[in-house]
């Protein structure tokens, strides 16, 4: 058993999980919407990427355009559906769950049932040797992308006016509204951003996971675990949560394969019991 490989992969898989769950955390934190379409948006992004690459776009361009496409769709979902259901959590859960089924069937119709593989970009193919351990080069790339996005998102949230407004909205939406922040517009922006991140992550994850019907349902629980562990609405939380889940996933499956899911979900249960807001989340007012 190669523990170094597992350690390195924990970071790489954590990076992918961060791209997947950062948007989920923002949406959940700001809007209190448990967005169960998040896995579907991830899958949709991957399928968009497949089609865009079939039309001749390069991998990175397809990832960006795919992300934007999903962001637009996310914006539509927010404006046309979720906006009509403020505060109605059960209705939101049902709407997003229903949407996820609809998206899954639409994808099946459009792209068929066969799994589709996304080619690893040529520059990142094969394995690199880091400190004597062979490690897929592409996954090193995923780590770099995740850290870049984490930094950019952090800077956006902490250093820009938009970020300040989002933080205000997360902390106290009523007060933010009273202070003149257009919270509804903010909701749309955050929903677009979160969806776009999921779609982008779908393409980035493609060379590792490939795309197939059911990818959505495979990824959603992981995003949930990350966000519950890390704390909703907290970027740092989902960053740390992603890597914690990455470690639990890799070492759990390798060392205690029979208990892989226990190892993954038990910490989530403990956190829910001991610190319901998550490791880095603030208790809601």
């Amino acid at each position: 058993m190669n523990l170094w490989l597992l350690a390195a992969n924990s970071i790489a898989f954590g990076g992918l999980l961060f791209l997947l769950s950062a948007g989920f955390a923002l949406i959940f934190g700001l809007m209190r919407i448990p967005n169960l379409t998040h896995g579907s948006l991830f899958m949709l992004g991957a399928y968009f990427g497949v089609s865009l690459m079939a039309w001749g776009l390069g991998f990175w361009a397809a990832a960006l355009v795919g992300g934007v496409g999903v962001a637009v769709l996310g914006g539509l979902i927010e404006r046309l559906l979720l906006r009509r259901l403020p505060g109605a959590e059960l209705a939101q859960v049902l709407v997003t769950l229903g949407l996820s089924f609809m998206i899954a069937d639409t994808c099946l119709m459009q792209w068929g049932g066969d799994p589709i593989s996304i080619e690893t970009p040529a520059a990142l193919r094969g394995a690199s040797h880091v400190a004597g351990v062979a490690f897929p080069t592409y996954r090193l790339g995923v780590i770099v992308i995740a850290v870049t996005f984490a930094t950019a998102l952090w800077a956006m949230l902490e250093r820009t006016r938009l970020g300040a407004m989002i933080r205000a909205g997360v902390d106290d939406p009523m007060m933010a509204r009273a202070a003149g922040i257009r919270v509804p517009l903010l909701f749309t922006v955050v929903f677009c951003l979160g969806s776009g991140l999921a779609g982008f992550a779908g393409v980035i994850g493609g060379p590792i996971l490939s795309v197939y019907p059911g990818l959505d349902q495979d990824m959603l629980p992981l995003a949930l675990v990350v966000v519950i562990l890390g704390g909703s609405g907290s970027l740092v939380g989902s960053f740390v949560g992603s890597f914690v889940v990455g470690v639990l996933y890799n070492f759990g499956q390798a060392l205690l394969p029979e208990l892989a899911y226990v190892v993954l979900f038990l910490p989530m249960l403990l956190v829910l019991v001991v610190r319901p807001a998550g490791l880095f989340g603030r208790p809601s007012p």
Partner: protein
Amino acid sequence: MSARLGRRTFTKRAGAMAMAGALPMPAIAEDKPVKIGLLTVKTGPLAQGGIQMEQGINLFLKHRGKKLAGRKAELVVGDTGGNPAGTKTKAQELIERDHVDFIVGPLAAFELLAISDYVAQHKCPILSLAAAEDMTQRKPNPYFVRASGTSAQAMHPLADYAAKELKYKSVITVTEDFAFGYEQMGGFQRVFEGDGGKVAKKLWPPIVTPDYTPYLAQLSGVDAVVSGFAGSNPLKFMKQYKDQGLTLPILAGSVAMDDALLKSFGDEAVGAISCSGYTADLDTPSNKKFVEGMVADYGNIPGIYAAGLYMSGMVAEAALEKTGGKTDDKEAFIAAMRGVSLTDTPRGPFHFDHLGNVIGNAFIRRCERKDGKLVNTTIKTYKDVGQFWTFDEKWFLAQPVYSRDYPPLKG
């Protein structure tokens, strides 16, 4: 229900009488069509195989001009949704509402197990691809016919080939943590160990495993890796295997290197040795016609799902010819099905054992790139392979069914 059917029948008869009155026609006793119920999965993760199943049976009926043994054939499709409850509901609809003469499908063992007793009670013959060993072994269903094979049926010859021809001494197996996986690897292990090989480890990733790296990290120190993955998992596994820089040879089960998956694979699949009861490169007239038809109609090289249904159709047709197109006597119909022996089919000649399981070719193939496309090229054919391989049936059935812990690892 009966009232509604009664009304329908009445309406039909009234309509027919009205027609007859209006247009004096020669009295032709028009035959009732043969009704075939298809249980398949059209949504969700299993849809890939389910759609291919439907394509297979549709192509078969098209090739026969929608007529079997002189009777018109009608297909009624039920989407199980890939879950046992849905399968039960659809099976009930097919049998009690549509009065189908026999059922083809379903895809997965857990679907079949949910309806096995029910279809037996209604004496409805069922031709399924589901590979659960005990359906034709320790808990046989007398109305069940399987033209594709058990989970281990192709794994026995694969193990034999690995030990005797490839001279491998040790392997690690890796496949999903569910019955189909256990049965495949149990079969491989029994034959491989019998031939002097050693199974060093058996790894069982959960069905949903986005990242196989924790398992890939354990693959070393053996001659080859045996993969038994199904659905879209083979694609993920092989890609991550190659990305990890692993170079151990891959031995694959029938669905892990299914011909229909080849268009999704990349170079990582080249060199993989697999064994299957169907191979697209078999040179028989009926297989050529089948493959050409699938490519023309669906743009797909078919794999075992489509071929299995196509051959199930052939079995039903041959049985109907024997009974003179009659299906009313269910006992006679199922006996005719199990007595079918075909010479030219997409998998070559096959017949059934007394438990309803197929005895036919098993093909060892090597995945190669030819003219830019991936193909499985047959390198050896084991003839007349049955579910018990070369073991004595009584002895085989006295052993426990292959499971996660059986046969146990040695040493």
